[in-house]
């Protein structure tokens, strides 16, 4: 493994501010607080604007996947802004470590930084595979537990928010509650509590109850839309041109499958690899244990949401696996892999039959698991209304929104037909 220099050293924990790209807003906000507890100073980047894309285009190979271009452009823009002390700033980027190009983001970022004259800025690799171990950034056991709790609660908050806000009577109430929960959870973790299963179960139940209490009007004509896609594009407003806001403006209820599923998908792939090609039984046992642990947390979440009787809970992971097997195979594990395909199937079964598949320009796995599987999904379910939307530096918002509007027009027609059927 080539060492990426300069390394983020132990000493830098005290001195440096780590800038990280934002993605799933709610989850990331809590995660950042967890990192702060551990003594890191972390800031989520939210700078946007055309100069972000411009800088990405300038310093990253233009045929590179769009998320890389955006994230790197955003970081360069932040460094250029003059807000940060360049002697005391580091950057963090995730590294998935699969057969997809995304594993190379850190290298692309390094190259871009060197070209742009920031060769002194260290980069922290956020990965769970032990890549770049020599770094002063360590993921500790405690951090991991808190982080996973943050994901589970964050996913739940996102789910509840999406299901309540289109119907809220008093505008802004849902967001207020989300913010309050982000604060509460962060505070708990800081105190060193809130991440055992028992505590989480309690929190989740309370969360669901509080969201149920928001005054709503379910008679509004709302179209239910699911979003899947490359992980960054799926969540990050910078990537998808504020897709969730646009859909909200078009009276849609959005369902975005959570991050926990992606984590489980990662674990499942380790198991699958050994099943398909052989490998260490010990490793298999460890991964199996981790998976079961995560599934228990997932169950807490599903139970809490299902108990309300009012909200649609996320699909259980074992069910997602079955969906994947119906359409593709679990061996397709690069990028979002089979998970993306399975999520489309799941969403349709949950009643979110209008699905937007966000695809960044140059995304190779998407050719397979996104566009490549739509035909089969339609074979299995004639009425599912899937639209792939391409995102790249040149694609105009007008074009994207026009295509989404078409999907919504068909969705509205289906909704009216459904209503007639109901009567």
């Amino acid at each position, binding site marked *: 493994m080539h060492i990426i220099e300069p390394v983020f050293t132990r000493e830098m924990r005290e001195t440096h501010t780590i800038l990280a790209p934002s993605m799933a807003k709610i989850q990331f906000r809590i995660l950042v607080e967890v990192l702060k507890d551990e003594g890191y100073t972390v800031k989520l980047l939210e700078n946007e604007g055309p100069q972000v894309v*411009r800088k990405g285009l300038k310093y990253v*190979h233009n045929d590179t996947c769009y998320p890389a271009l955006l994230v790197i452009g955003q970081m360069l823009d932040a460094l250029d802004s003059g807000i940060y002390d360049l002697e005391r700033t580091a950057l963090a980027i995730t590294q998935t470590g699969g057969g997809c190009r995304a594993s*190379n983001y850190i290298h692309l970022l390094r190259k871009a930084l060197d070209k742009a004259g920031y060769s002194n800025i260290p980069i922290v690799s956020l990965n769970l595979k032990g890549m770049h171990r020599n770094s002063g950034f360590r993921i500790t056991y405690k951090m991991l537990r808190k982080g996973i709790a943050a994901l589970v609660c964050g996913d739940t908050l996102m789910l509840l928010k999406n299901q309540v806000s289109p119907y809220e009577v008093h505008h802004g109430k849902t967001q207020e509650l989300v913010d309050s929960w982000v604060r509460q959870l962060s505070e708990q973790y800081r105190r060193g509590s809130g991440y055992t299963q028992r505590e989480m179960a309690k929190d989740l139940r309370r969360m669901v109850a509080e969201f149920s209490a928001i005054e709503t009007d379910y008679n509004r004509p709302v179209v239910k839309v699911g979003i899947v896609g490359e992980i960054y594009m799926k969540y990050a407003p910078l990537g998808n041109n504020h897709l969730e806001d646009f859909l909200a403006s078009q009276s849609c209820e959005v369902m975005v499958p959570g991050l926990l599923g992606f984590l489980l998908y990662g674990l499942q792939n380790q198991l699958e690899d050994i099943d398909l090609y052989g490998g260490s039984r010990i490793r298999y046992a460890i991964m199996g244990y981790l998976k079961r642990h995560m599934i228990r947390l997932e169950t807490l979440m599903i139970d809490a949401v299902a108990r309300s009787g009012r909200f649609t809970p996320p699909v259980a992971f074992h069910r997602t696996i079955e969906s994947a097997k119906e*359409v*593709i195979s679990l061996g397709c594990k690069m990028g979002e892999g089979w998970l993306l395909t399975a999520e489309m199937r799941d969403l349709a079964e949950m009643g979110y039959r209008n699905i937007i598949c966000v695809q960044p320009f140059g995304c190779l796995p998407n*050719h397979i698991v996104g566009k490549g599987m739509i035909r089969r999904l*339609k074979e299995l379910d004639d009425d599912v209304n899937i639209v792939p939307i391409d995102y790249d530096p040149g694609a105009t918002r007008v074009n994207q929104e026009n295509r989404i509007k078409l999907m919504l027009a068909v969705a509205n027609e289906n909704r009216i037909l459904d209503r007639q059927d109901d009567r």
Partner: protein
Amino acid sequence: MVIGLDVGSTTIKCVVLDEDNRIVFSQYDRHLSQIASQSARLLEHIRTNVLHGQSAKLMISGSAGMGMADRCSLPFIQEVYATRIAARKLTPQADVIIELGGEDAKILFLSHGMEVRMNGSCAGGTGAFIDQMASLLQISADDMDAEAARAEKVYTVASRCGVFAKSDIQPLLNQGARKSDIAASIFQAVVNQTIAGLAQGRAIKGNIVYLGGPLTFMSQLRSAFDETLHTTGICPANSLFYVALGAAFCATSTIDIAEAVDHLRKHKIEDSVVSMAPLFEDEVAYRAFTERHERARVPTGTITENTSCIYLGIDAGSTTVKTVAIDDNGAIVDTTYQSNSGNPVPIVRSVLERIYREHPDICIRGSAVTGYGEDIIRSAFGIDEGLVETVAHFTAAKHFMGEVEFVIDIGGQDIKCFQIHNGAVDNIYLNEACSSGCGSFLQTFAQALGYPVETFAKLGLFARHPVDLGSRCTVFMNSSVKQAQKEGSPMEDISAGLSISVVKNALYKVIRATSPENLGRHIVVQGGTFHNDAVLRAFEQELDTEVVRPTIAGLMGAYGAALHAKKHSKGESQIINAKALAEFEHTVKVATCRLCTNTCRLTINTFSNGKRYLSGNRCERPVTNRVANDELNIFAWKLAQLDALGCYIHDQVPEDAIGIPLGLNMYELVYFWKAFFETLGKKIVVSPLSNRKLYLSGQATIPSDTACFPAKLMHGHIQALIDAGVKTIFYPCMTYNMDEHLGDNHFNCPIVAYYPKVIGANMEQVASVDFIDCHVGLHRRGDFPKKMAKNLEPYLGKLDAKLVLKASDAAYTAHANYLQRMREAGKRIIDTARIEGKQIIILAGRPYHVDPEVGHGIDKLLGAFNVAVLSEDAISHLVEKFPVHVLNQWTYHSRLYAAAKAIADQDDMQLVQLVSFGCGVDAITSDETRDILEAAGKMYTQIKIDEITNLGAVRIRFRSLLSAIEQQEKPHAHH
């Protein structure tokens, strides 16, 4: 009454219906981007002349109507949806609607599960595309239809993007192909694009309805669709107005039209267009700038009786023909600059005629030609020297700046730039895949916006707030410009923005420069586009440096050729004399070459001097009548090996034979699988090498048209196997490749890894056979036999474990043997080349580049330059794993890095990287490979390939590379 208003990308269509849904008014107009004011005018007209004060319902639709309706709070309906509403009412028998518009292409499947397909962010195959092609042919779109009716043959033209098509068409024009044939080829390209890009696996059958402008106005386009789809579609009455009609049918709310008109007139301009710094602060700054550039000039003179000896340089470019004559002192005595009109021959002829006429005593001492039309002009007029463009431009640039380090030439359709290292051309950047940084781009926009290009560019000089239009494909830029217009940016700002975009595209897309230091401090800019002061200024601004623009910036190629002619003059030129010129004749004939199975379509130009010039040939055989010497070509060796496998299908396929599609990774792994299955007692057959026909046979089932070409070919290979009667197809998924210990991991790219799943999900034909697409891990040899036995059990029954083990051993051995033989063949080629003193070129790519349809015979083309040709895998084993600056985790790509490393210290070896369009991984590998080579002081040459078969640009690269090597060798010789 009901009004349906359809505001499309280029036109406004409107209908007014009475209570019985009868059309009482309809109108079709181009809106020239004045959508709000045009809509207001139209509605006002309807209000006074049609409604006579009555109230009416209104519904707006169309791609450009959305934002407008939003801002004026008018009801809007998505246009495809409107089409469907109209079709249900007016043509209920329709099964499929094909609608082409200005910038959109759509297919609506109405029966058996409604489905709508629209073109994505790509405008290939739309009206805009046809318009662009018509202007390239210099005929109107209507004439194009008439021309197409007279066509005799159809050429292959890529239609995914106007740029690709242009690069296919321009050489055809230059080579003298008939306009009618080209017109028909363009229509066929549109058909192919629509089917490939939109149908995506769904068969277009049943009653077909054609809608939209191009299909309404062009009968030949309809016939092309009919022919390809084996059907006869109908173009119903009001085919232009379906969207407007659909909108009208959906209208529910009654609108106060007067108020709506008022809203539209006040249509506020949203401030969402991003602006940039102005090009010039004031007139003073501009004057200083022009004065500085005026200084870069060459002495000029006239042809007089005393100085009637001249040297003639001709630059037969893709869009223009330029000539420069210099006298013995190097003064320029004659220049011409003319638009190419598709055929450079008559232009050069008229130039020569004029020179001979005006100066009967002229003595031409030397002549040289460069550019796309080099070969044809040379044959036609007996020009002494031919030189590659890059060398011509360098020769000229050196004249203005002895220490020049970087030359950038932006012409009509090409960007050529190169660095100078040690007095030789190095690091050539050409724009094969994109023309958005070029002059024709500005010209197209100027024309579209109604200005001559000179006036248009000047507009931008003092623009206060140039709009930021981004730096990508022309097609995308089209919509950015539209958006800027929609939002009311003045033409000055758009003009300046476009000039800046040209520069950015050139810098960041083609050259990929990040700072002037990368390019060198001494930069000469040239090409007609730099005559445009706005572009020149934007270039200086973007790089934050001052550059030299010669006053003859547009003539530099021709000037360089003239200098070259002078340098190589042998006293008198062989150029055609006045008498022979008077009798000059040029005939063009079309024929099919029968010398091999490629059956290339040849265009044969015959000239009165008896010389012939052929084009359309992929090899030199029809020219030299000799089979190319394949001894020093490892690609030929590989093809011969595949042939020797004996798995191609010749006659009846045995019932239990297993078919393997010969695509992607199979070119290499077929040896493995053959040994494996044959040990199990199964016969293996493979699909044939790819060709155009094979590609088209699977085209309709491709779900993602932006995937790489080698992947898309896979559909054709599967189809070929099924057509041959194969009952079992083996095409496994392979996350991992073999571990060759050159990288940190040994993945395949996602496409190679999982394409079998795409085939299974999108080709309904595979349901009729046993399609084995199991996941296979060759990287774990110990586990492989057991896992494989399990994989195959559902198809072949329970297999004997010992037999599978034996088969597995045989397979791994066969694989190792193949690699070894291939490496030995490579070694032999290297040895022979060294004995014969030949250069060795590593044509580095992937195993599938051996396929002639993927590699476009580039290996053969190289061979014709008298060099040895190797592939990356023939030398990648020569180095150990070494650190690179990227995550080195794909087996095939590790070979690339290794190959680059392996030749780093070999003086007689060069590497040329083949990159497939759409290959995301190569965005990473190409930069890294370049870095490895450049760190060793080597040149990096990249060739981007796709469906296109235009080898002109490839030839330029090779020739420049070879002439650079030649020049680099010379200094050594003197030591």
